[in-house]
């Protein structure tokens, strides 16, 4: 083994490093937290090794998997990466392709999100692997994730079958010093097996990050000599040694994320403490405190330990006197999406707002997002809402919103479907020219490739026009007056006969991307001067730079966060700019009778 000095990196980069060292030839991914950094890692290590790996951002996960599959079928070592719900999008090729004999190799890296912290649902990829007979590995640390990436590519190549590496956000986003090896020289042995030998009274089965946490907890509680602990790395197919371990102990507790995959696979009913009998929580992340609670409780019940940790509740008592501001997820100060959502909910407070998945899901705080089902779902839900209301002869404005990356990912068939069937709703495409929430990955429109060079660019308006949309406007959402005017125009257009959906592209580059940083904004914001303390800007607009000064009874601007975009001045009912928009203000009315 030829080692280079270790480097601190996140788990996702460690995975990328392992793949590159194992001779990867093609990588394709769609960004999704917590998986998004693996492809940039592949690009980085390929550059350092002066390799010839083809790496690309795909339009969606299905494209990523099919491209990788094509390469694997024709003899290449390929990988595709996605988050857990992204695997749902890639299901068709996965289910049919899992039985194909590969000429090359295919590794699918799927990162789960216990909690969930940044997804709509928790979902255990390992469970799908067990259901559909796909080998799956569950690493417990960044270092192990890198080793397993190396191992999995070789495993797939040897066995001619696709395999899955299931990471979780705590592994993907943990940081650790990683040894780098010369490509092709790493020696990996799966670190599966007995890690603690403390007799047969209590056996603990662990996998993934839950293993690392359980080891720390057992050590803190002083139980290392009183329990036996088996760490699973290859969750499916399970190894014989694991089954022997399960037989060899009197009681078993299973500490695994996200669902009960090992618990289900091992059976053994009565002697198991797990999710089925309520010892392990059925949902949510297994944090250090949760694991400590589980192990303490069981150790006490079977008489090998006493409750050692008692929380000091004085802390909570002392904190009662302090106000800790809640920090729900918010759009950035100055985000152009906030301006778009303000226009939508100001002009049409009574509308139905089908939303979608991305930064702009956070428009829910402004009352401009009502639904958030799956990527692209907002467009088709809007069509379904329209059908429902028109069946009842109700006319209710429907204002759907979707981001630019999601538009390409999942909205093309839904929009085409809506145009073809003349569904009356307005679709606002919030185009910030990047995939912002997952960390600024390029979109098909930006035309930037995975390694940062310029490639082919596909304009959203060209696609929309191509589908036959008649009402199409492109505007800057910072121009609130124009935005509101256009929303009214769209509604007037939809009132006509035979109209198709109206599409508004609200375009302004994300503030966090390189280009977004160049804009010239106002010198200062005079919101504080005539403030009467009505809080309209705080409650309805929700810019993180605005807070309420309880002593002065006035709004306060945080200079470190404020970028001086001045949009809040249009929200202020006292400010001249705010007053200028009052002509667009919509009323929240009960369901209106049919109009003809």
């Amino acid at each position: 083994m030829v080692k280079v000095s270790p480097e601190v990196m996140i788990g996702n980069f460690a995975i990328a490093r392992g793949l590159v060292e194992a001779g990867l030839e093609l990588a394709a991914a769609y960004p999704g937290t917590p998986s998004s950094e693996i492809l940039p890692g592949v690009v980085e290590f390929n550059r350092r090794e002066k390799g010839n790996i083809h790496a690309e951002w795909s339009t969606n996960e299905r494209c990523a998997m099919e491209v990788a599959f094509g390469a694997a079928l024709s003899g290449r070592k390929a990988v595709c990466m996605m988050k857990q719900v992204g695997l749902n999008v890639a299901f068709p090729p996965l289910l049919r392709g899992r039985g194909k004999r590969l000429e090359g190799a295919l590794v699918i890296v799927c990162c789960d999100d216990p909690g969930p912290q940044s997804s709509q649902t928790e979902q255990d990829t390992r469970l799908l692997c067990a259901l559909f007979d796909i080998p799956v590995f569950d690493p417990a640390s960044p270092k192990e994730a890198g080793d397993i990436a190396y191992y999995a590519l070789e495993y797939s190549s040897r066995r001619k079958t696709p395999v899955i590496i299931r990471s979780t956000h705590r592994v993907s986003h943990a940081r650790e010093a990683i040894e780098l090896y010369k490509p092709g020289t790493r020696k990996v042995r799966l670190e599966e097996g007995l890690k603690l030998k403390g007799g047969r009274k209590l056996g603990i089965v662990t996998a993934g990050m839950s293993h690392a946490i359980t080891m720390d907890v057992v050590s803190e509680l002083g139980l290392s000599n009183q329990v036996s602990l088996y760490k699973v790395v290859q969750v499916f197919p399970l190894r014989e040694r694991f089954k022997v371990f399960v037989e060899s102990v009197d009681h078993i507790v299973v500490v695994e994320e996200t669902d009960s995959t090992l618990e289900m696979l091992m059976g053994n009913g009565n002697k198991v403490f797990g999710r089925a009998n309520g010892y392990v929580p059925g949902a949510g992340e297994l944090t250090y405190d949760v694991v400590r609670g589980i192990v303490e409780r069981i150790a006490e019940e079977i008489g090998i330990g006493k409750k050692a940790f008692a929380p000091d509740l004085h802390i909570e008592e002392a904190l009662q006197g302090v106000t800790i501001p809640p920090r729900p997820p918010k759009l950035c100060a100055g985000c152009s999406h906030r301006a778009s959502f303000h226009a939508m909910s100001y002009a049409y407070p009574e509308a139905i707002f089908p939303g979608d998945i991305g930064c702009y899901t956070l428009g829910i705080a402004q009352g401009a997002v009502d639904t958030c089902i799956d990527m692209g779902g907002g467009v088709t839900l809007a069509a379904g809402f329209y059908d429902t209301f028109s069946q009842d002869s109700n006319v209710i404005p429907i204002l759907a919103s979707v981001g630019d990356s999601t538009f390409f990912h999942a909205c093309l068939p839904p929009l085409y479907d809506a145009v073809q069937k003349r569904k009356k709703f307005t679709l606002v495409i919030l185009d910030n020219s990047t995939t912002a929430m997952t960390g600024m990955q390029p979109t098909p429109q930006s035309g930037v490739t995975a390694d940062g060079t310029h490639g082919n660019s596909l304009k959203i308006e060209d696609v929309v026009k191509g589908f036959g949309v008649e009402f199409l406007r492109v505007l800057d959402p910072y121009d609130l007056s124009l935005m509101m005017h256009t929303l009214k125009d769209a509604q007037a257009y939809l009132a006509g006969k035979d109209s198709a959906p109206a599409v508004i592209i609200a375009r302004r580059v994300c503030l966090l991307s390189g280009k977004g940083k160049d804009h010239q904004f106002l010198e200062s914001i005079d919101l504080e001067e005539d403030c009467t303390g009505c809080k309209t800007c705080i409650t309805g607009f929700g810019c993180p730079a605005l807070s309420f000064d309880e002593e002065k009874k006035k709004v306060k601007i945080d200079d470190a966060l404020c970028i001086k975009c001045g949009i809040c001045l249009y929200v202020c009912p006292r400010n001249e700019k705010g007053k200028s928009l009052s002509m667009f203000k919509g009323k929240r009315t009960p369901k209106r009778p049919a109009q003809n």
Partner: protein
Amino acid sequence: MNLEIVCAGIGGRGVLLASTIIIEAAVRAGFHAMASDEYGMSQRGGSVVSLVKIGASQSPLIGRENADILLAFEESEFYRNLVFLKKGGLAIVNTAREVLPERINNLLVERNNKCFLIAADDIAKEKGMIQASNMAILGFFSYFGIGPYNRESLLETLKERTKGKFLEKNVDVFQAGFRRAEDKVIVVQEKKMEDSLW
């Protein structure tokens, strides 16, 4: 040695850069170290917590009342993460306050915590770079010389991690934070002779 450190603040204010320097300085000194970051869905302005563990532990996660050190880059995040701090642990809080609310103060005395308040935002503002308040905290922290962390080791890692015009400002603010600790800790220690506050 085992050391558990919680870095807490809000997004866009350099919590992750600070914890990066903390983990890398430990690795440079030959320790096994791991970090885990939690930053939720907000790109800016949300709660950010970065946990760093040094030593023999296997996971980067920290349990309630287990952290040796709590570095709070924002006052309200100090309160939110106070349950992590163990008895006798050290806390450094970025705040313009001179004293903490009485009940909190009493709690810290009862739990034998050493807690220092530092107006890191003001220090950074004086140096013309309000975003660098994280460096004032790091500079202050470096004064205590805990484990692999001292002025030299953190500055060296900082120099590797930041480049160009930011480096100079960051170093400036870091040094100012260190000097603040010199003044403040000496004052507190003298006071300790009188009323053994901490």
